[in-house]
């Protein structure tokens, strides 16, 4: 069996060459004059690609197209960024932190700066590398507060708010809409994101409703997809409120499996990442479900000219409305543009250097489709934003949101220099 006859060999070549051809095709894409090259790292494969990676990628394309054309984006009239046109280089975020740090180092050889990272693990791993390589790097989606709590960075910015506010706001929302909540339960994916989300939510609830009772806390595996037993446990726990930071397919599967079994009737379910599923799944999400969008995005976004333009441009190009990852990508690009243009004007209208851009970026505040963003925390490197929650109400076969409550940044994010955990436990002390 060691040697193969010719037939199979040729076949085998056929089998394996084909992808190589694909690769070659991709290789065709090259560069022209001297545009600003931005490496964009988001999930192109795996479970996070559909809900997060691709919407973000598409938003990036929409915004950059418009910026390069110039005069299209309301409030951002000037062409490109700091004068030069923009070119995006996409890289897959899949494969774990080890791969990502390696790929990051490869990527920065080819681009002027990097925007990316949905997974908190990748953000924590890449930030030090960025600092070491002295490369401007903007984290656009990942949620863990640890990035700027554990360290301070010069080259790293995050234009999205931390996940703290999702769960603090969720707790505030619940305590306002269900004033007499006695028992809460949780079902969160068994990894850092789920664990942090639950502990923030629980801590906040304990502050807001002293003596709150925990009925059950479920920790299914990430991407397990089968929640029968967990749902039974939740059903029999008799909790008034069920908190879940499930995202993407897991969240959708959970809804599909739980709603026929009446979990949503028995208790108020809070889905802090529910928004990404609503367009496809809306009909399946029962009335009374509390939905979050990880910020003032999508249906919770302010009705500004910028937002209207973004929604329309995205919808026209891709036939679906933008979801929160799209908003966060747009936010990152527009924040960056603001910084570049500011740096350029303060540089006598010459293309600014990286340090000038960084200086301009710190503590900047800018308009995005999701409203005003302030780089207020982490010595001006970490954005803060308001948080919104709403309750699903079906209106015929159309999904609407009632009891929409908006919480200003200072209500849901700790002040500079205070760890989220301590801030919540301290009873949200404003610090000042």
């Amino acid at each position, binding site marked *: 069996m060691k040697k193969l006859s010719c037939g199979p060999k040729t076949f085998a070549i056929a089998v394996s*060459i084909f992808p190589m051809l694909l690769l070659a095709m991709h*290789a065709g894409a090259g560069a022209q004059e001297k545009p600003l090259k931005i490496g964009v790292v988001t999930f192109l494969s795996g479970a996070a690609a559909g809900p997060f990676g691709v919407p973000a990628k598409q938003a990036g394309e929409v915004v950059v197209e418009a910026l390069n054309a110039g005069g299209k984006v309301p409030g951002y009239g000037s062409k490109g960024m700091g004068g030069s046109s923009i070119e995006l280089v996409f890289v897959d975020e899949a494969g*774990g932190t080890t791969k990502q740090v390696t790929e990051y180092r490869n990527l920065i050889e080819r681009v002027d700066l990097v925007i990316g990272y949905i997974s908190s693990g990748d953000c*924590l791993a890449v930030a030090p590398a960025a600092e070491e*390589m002295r490369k401007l790097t903007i984290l656009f989606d990942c949620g863990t507060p640890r990035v700027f709590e554990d360290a301070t960075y010069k080259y790293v910015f995050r234009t999205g708010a931390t996940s703290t506010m999702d769960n603090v706001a969720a707790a505030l929302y619940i305590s306002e809409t269900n004033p007499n909540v006695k028992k809460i339960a949780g079902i969160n994916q068994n*990894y*850092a994101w789920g664990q942090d989300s639950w502990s923030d939510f629980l801590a906040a609830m304990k502050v807001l409703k002293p003596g709150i009772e925990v009925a059950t806390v479920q920790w299914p595996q990430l991407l397990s997809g089968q929640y029968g037993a967990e749902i039974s446990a939740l059903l029999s726990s008799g909790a008034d409120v069920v908190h879940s930071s499930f995202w993407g397919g897991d969240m959708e599967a959970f809804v599909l499996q739980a709603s026929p079994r009446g979990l949503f009737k028995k208790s108020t379910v809070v889905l802090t990442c529910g928004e990404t599923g609503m367009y496809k799944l809306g009909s399946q999400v029962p009335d009374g479900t509390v939905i979050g969008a990880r910020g003032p995005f999508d249906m919770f976004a302010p009705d500004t000219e910028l937002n209207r333009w973004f929604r329309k441009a995205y919808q026209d190009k891709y036939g679906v409305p933008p979801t929160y990852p799209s908003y966060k990508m747009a936010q990152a690009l527009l924040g960056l543009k603001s910084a570049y243009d500011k740096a350029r004007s303060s540089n006598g209208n010459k293309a600014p250097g990286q340090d000038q851009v960084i200086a301009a970026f710190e503590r900047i505040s800018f308009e995005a489709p999701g409203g005003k963003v302030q780089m207020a925390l982490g010595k001006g490197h970490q954005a803060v934003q308001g948080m919104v929650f709403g309750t699903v109400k079906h209106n015929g076969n159309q999904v609407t949101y009632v009891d929409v409550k908006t919480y200003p940044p200072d209500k849901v994010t700790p002040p500079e220099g205070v760890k989220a955990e301590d801030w919540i436990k301290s009873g949200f002390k404003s610090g000042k």
Partner: protein
Amino acid sequence: MIGKGYTVHVLVVALVVLLVAGPFMHKWLFMLTMSMGKGLVVLGLIVLLRTGLVSFGQGLYYCVGAYTVGSLGQFLGWKNALVLLVGGTAAAAVLATILGFLLANYRSIFFAMLSLAFSMILFGLLVKTSALGSTDGFNVPAPTLFGKAISGAGHQYPLFALGCVVAFIAALLTNAYLRTALGRLSPAIRDNEIRVEYMGASVRNAIHTKYVIAGALAGLGGALTAMTIGHIDPEMAYWTTSGEFVFVAILGGTGSVIAPFLGAIIFEIIRTYAYQYSPNTWQMVLGSAMLLVIIFLPAGLWSAFAYRSRRG
């Protein structure tokens, strides 16, 4: 069998070339250092593979080595690279010695699955330990040597050099070991355990020793990787990580102690370019590369570089 005279020469030449060329290929230093780390793990793996055993749990020791380095740096403030390397290796070796008593009784797929189970249990435990950052893991402070930082801003060369030297020594020792009576038992055990026993050798002890060696090397690789990346997380113990090591081992071949490093480097290169030019189908590229090697170089990439060996 292994240990042809030229192996040592090739190793020396390779080391010299790398150390000399290092300063001039800054772009590649990080990738090469990573390959050294991976290569060390795979080096241990081929010691087992030659004995006919496949571990799908080398991630366990890789992870233990890395977390030892991380914890020593993070919580005890130890920074000396050599100390950290030794620490990581020792921790892994100890664990391997303990588990070895059990695993030495297992063969083929059961050996693979039991080792996999152990590494997945560690994965689960780490995911549950929020003190260690759960799945987000935590950052490893830059290591030092003789009081100087040897990685970080601009100068990765020292760590790269250290990595090369460590890999070189490990390869040299492994090569020597494989030429000892016990080392030579590997293919014998793979072929016919009964006969080995009837030669007056204990298959169980032989396998146990080899398992410890493999574990220690994996720990060393993990330690080096942790210092290189500066970040560690439980993914290192996840079965896909272990699977990748087996992948690289087969890619490189088990014919020589040089093969693992060759395999690791080529694997990194393939993946890097796949990520660059084919971001949507890089898995496919890796898969087909694997198939091509299995079909056309059944003895691994090494056999293409080495002169036609008897079984090549």
